[in-house]
Every structure is written in C-alpha cells, then in structure tokens.
C-alpha cells in the first residue's frame, strides 16, 4: 500500500557513509526518533555487544558465452552450500542479453539450459558446466573447472559486483566492501555494515561495549523473477568464531544487549541459538568456532532468542528484508515506522538511510541468572 504522504526514494550514489545519512530509531517504548546516522554509536550502552558480518562481496556477476547456442548470458552467482574457497559449485541465476541499466525484471530470457552445457567466461580460461537446472529455467547449479586458485584469480579479473539499475555508475568492489570485509562469500553486500568505520568501532569500545564479527554468505536480494523472488532468502551458510559466541553468552548473562548490524547477523545468530550452537560446548571438548547453514525464514511469529536491536537499511514493505522486521515489531507499530520512513523521505537500498529497531526478546535464550549491571 502506498503511504498517503511522502515516499521512499532509491539511493543512487554509491557512497557508504554519505554526510547526510539519517537513522530512524524505534525504542522499546515505541518512540520513533530521526537522528543523523553518524551519531549511531551514541545509542550503544556500556555492556552491549555489537555484531557485524565480515563477509566480503563477491564479484558475482560474470559475462559468459553459452557454448551450445553461442549466445551471451550473464551469470549471477546466488548461493553456495559452504563457505569453503575450494567449493566451486554455485547456484546461479542466468539473465539474457542486456546490462544493469535494464531493470532485472525487463531483461531478456537466457537461452534454454540443459545439464552438461558449458558456459565459457571470455578473456579467461575459466568455464563452468551446468550440473542441473533447478526448479526454474533461469536457476541452475554450476560447477567451475580448474583449481581453486585459478578460479579465484579468474573471478577477480572477470567478475563484477552485481550492479543495480538504481545506481547509474558502475560499482567496483571497493564500493561494496565494508571496512571490515574479509572472506569473499557474500553474493550481495551486507550493506547494513556500510555505516561502520574504524572511528565507530573505537567509539563502541570507548563506550564500554564490545565489537565482534561473524561471517554470513548474504545471498541475492532480488532476481527480477517473481517466482524465484518468492523463494528468497535462499539458505545461507555462516560461521561464528569462538570469540563471538563467547561474547554473546557473556553479554546475555550480564543483561547487555546484542546489537546486530544487518539482517544477515540476525539470521545467523538466531539460527545458531535455535540449534543450540551458541551454548558453551567447551566442557564437551568441542571447538567453539562452528559453521552451519541458516535456512529459516524470519518474520512475524518468529521467536527471537538472541538479538535485541537490529540496525538495518531502509526496506520497502513486501521485500524479504522488510519481512524480517516483523520478527522485531508487531504489525501496527511497523506500519507506523513505515509511514514515518516514507514521511521523512528515507532513501532505500544499499546506499540509503538506516533504521535502529529495539525490541524486547520474547523468549530469553539464556535462562542463567543475570548479574548486576
């Protein structure tokens, strides 16, 4: 439904921390406030833990030639079953001729694919073969040939980050890597992390809070195909380091808040908690760092157990990211938030304005008694 006054606008300039960026905050009492986003660390309290996703964004878009037909296609790597760099099997969305200036929805269909078809990447010795056509003609599972070092070197040369029709300038990797980016496993940028810079990491620490990371393979947010989009988010592998899991436990035990920078952090932490992976397993001799795959959908009715505060980009109603907000905020309040965002003409998408959503945890994951603050 289109709000009566104001509207969301797409942010079209690839600046991660534009001077005028704004932050809408919703506190536990339901009060909505709009602040300059650069002041966000002022909302962090002593004893809190800020958790961010350190995934670097893959140059996931590759021009290729479909060998059997000789036609050009764009491969958009969309998912992988593991975070391992030697795993060269990807699920990918294929697009036909055209480039990012055409809205994904309006792109031509790719040629028909069959298992065994080869896709060659021009300008490199890299090629991939179709292992199977998944449950949609544009959605395939691909295996790349060659050794992992050859693959990564060719991907770095030939791949581009997924481009957006609402950002006219071509995006380079430095536009889409957060300052903490490390393992290249994200298919689209974990863009809530764009608000982080090293001064804010220092500010978090000087406020008596802590900072930790996990790695979550953020997947494609939109394929331009309604049938495929309805399946999003795809399962996403993640890894939580020992130190991060321990800090989550300590923070919860002393009654501090877990502040998640981005929906991917929520998905990983809540998945881990729901599967008992955040428990202290050291008495069992198990190593603390673990990897798993988040396959749950978060939305209204989700019983969150870990994350108290979500910091996220501005998402329009109907998108999978917006759906996740319903795990934090009851619908009537979320409507108020959406109206406030539209009224203030908040900018959506990766390089837009942000929201800070506080919400009481419906079910405490950690039943241990809480110490004094």
């Amino acid at each position: 439904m289109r709000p009566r006054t104001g509207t969301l606008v797409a942010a079209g300039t690839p600046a991660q921390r534009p001077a005028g960026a704004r932050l809408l905050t919703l506190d536990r009492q339901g009060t909505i406030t709009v602040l300059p986003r650069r002041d966000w660390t002022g909302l962090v309290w002593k004893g809190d833990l800020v958790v961010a996703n350190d995934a670097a964004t893959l140059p996931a878009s590759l021009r290729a030639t479909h060998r059997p037909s000789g036609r050009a296609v764009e491969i958009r790597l969309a998912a992988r079953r593991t975070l391992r760099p030697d795993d060269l099997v990807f699920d990918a969305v294929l697009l036909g001729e055209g480039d990012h200036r055409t809205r994904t929805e309006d792109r031509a269909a790719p040629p028909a694919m069959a298992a065994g078809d080869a896709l060659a990447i021009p300008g490199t010795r890299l090629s991939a073969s179709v292992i199977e056509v998944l449950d949609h003609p544009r959605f395939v599972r691909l295996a790349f040939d060659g050794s992992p070092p050859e693959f990564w070197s060719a991907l770095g040369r030939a791949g581009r980050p997924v481009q957006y029709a609402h950002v006219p300038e071509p995006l380079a990797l430095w536009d889409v890597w957060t300052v903490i980016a490390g393992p290249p496993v994200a298919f689209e940028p974990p863009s809530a992390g764009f608000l982080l810079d090293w001064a804010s990491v220092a500010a978090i620490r000087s406020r008596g809070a802590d900072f930790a990371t996990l790695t979550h393979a953020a997947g494609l947010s939109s394929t331009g195909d309604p049938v495929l989009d309805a399946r999003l988010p795809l399962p996403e592998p993640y890894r939580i380091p020992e130190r991060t899991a321990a800090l989550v436990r300590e923070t919860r035990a002393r009654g501090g808040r877990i502040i998640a920078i981005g929906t991917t952090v929520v998905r990983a932490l809540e998945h881990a908690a729901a599967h008992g992976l955040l428990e202290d397993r050291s008495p069992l001799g198990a190593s603390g760092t673990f990897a798993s795959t988040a396959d749950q959908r978060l939305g209204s009715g989700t019983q969150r157990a870990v994350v108290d505060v979500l910091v996220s980009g501005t998402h329009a109603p109907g998108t999978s990211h917006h759906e996740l907000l319903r795990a934090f905020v009851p619908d009537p309040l979320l409507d108020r938030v959406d109206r406030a965002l539209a009224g203030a003409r908040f900018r959506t998408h990766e390089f837009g304005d942000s929201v800070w959503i506080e919400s009481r945890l419906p079910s405490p994951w950690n039943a241990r008694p809480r110490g004094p603050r």
Partner: protein
Amino acid sequence: MKITEVDRTDNSEAHPLAGARAVVTGGTSGLGLALVRALRSAGAEVAFVARTPARVAEVARETGATGIVADVANKRDVHRIALEVGASVGRDGALDLLVNNASSLGPVPLRPLGDTDCEDLEAALAANLLGPFRLTKTLLGPLAAGGRSGRPSVVLNVSSDAARGAYPGWGAYGASKAGLAHLSAIWDAELAAEGVRVLSIDPGDMDTPLHERALPGSDRASLPRPGEAARALLAAVATVRGQVRS
C-alpha cells in the same frame, strides 16, 4: 629447496609463527622470497604477490604458498589481491601478518630530483606509499580480526636507510620510504587499540637484484644475504606478537 609439507613432527618448541596467516608482497625475489621461504619453514600459511606470472607460479610451486599475480601500485588490483587472500590464507576471516615489501627504486639509473620526471616520482609513491596504504586498508578487517583473537597482528612495512638519510640521487625512493615510515608510525598509534601493530623496519643492505640496479657493480660478496635479514625481521614480528595485549 622444496617444501611440500610443513614439518610438524618436532613438537619440542613450535616456531612462534607456526600456523600464522601471512601475506607478503614482492615474494618472488630478494627479501620477499626469503620471507616467503622462512615463513613456510616456520609453519605459516602464506600468500604472496608479484607482477611476473611465470615467477609467481614457480615460487608457488616451490614453497606451497598461494601466488597472486598483481601490481601493488595499481589501484584496480588491490581488491583483487584481497579477494585471493580471502579465498586462501584469509578464509577464516583473520590475518596475522602483512609484509609490504614490494618496492620501486624510482627511475634508474638513480638521478637528482631536478632530473626526475614528475611521473617517475608519482610511480615511486604509487608503489612504495599508496600501494602499502591501500593494501593495508583493504585487509584491515581481517588484520583487526586477527588482533582481536589474542595476539596482536602485525603490518610490517619494509623501509630503508634512505627514509632518513638525505642521499643524493635517491630522491623518489627516499621520499616515498620516508612517507611510508611516517604513515606506519601514525597507523601504529591509531590501530594499537584494534590489536594491530604497524612496524617500519630497515632490513639493511642485501645482495638482491634491486641492490644491483641501484648500485651496479657493488662487491656482492661483501653484502649480507636476504635470508639473514628475513630472519631478523621475522624475529621482530614474533617479539611483537608475543606481547600480550593489555
């Protein structure tokens, strides 16, 4: 020397850099090659960078390190280096050591600043100052992650006595190395809280192709081997990493 597998049978006293995840630029010659070899012998996981593909492949084969073909002076190559690092030694999200060793002498034969083209000064700054700045900045996430996990991670910027001494003829190189030394000092102060130490160390004269290009016809027998300097630099790194964070 061919290292196929790191020897882990000697469990008397593990090398302080055993298991460390390291990146070395300029790893196919001189000091950089000696560092790659020494780190591999110590049991570290190593990725290295240089521009000449055949040499990169050779050194990768010899040492078992990951070879990355790239030019540290080229802005467009830096994220590609980080991508390949993240898909190899940085796969778990953390790095323990970055050595910015690759370096340009500036125009050779060496010449007075008055005879140095602006473009040649720019090229020296691009390789010796901007390159290390960009690569360090791009790898700062994994370096800070390494630093958070207990021991400080280290950025070692390879300096030169030309960073301090005003040697006629060494203007482009000396100015770029002086800039790098000061950048290192400021960054070290800023990053201490993140558990990242930034060192700038002069390895001293060494018998390498760079030395021969700078001072052709020197008495090579009188020059120390790069392997000796590599050992001294890694000892300095191990000392810093042994300092427990407050």
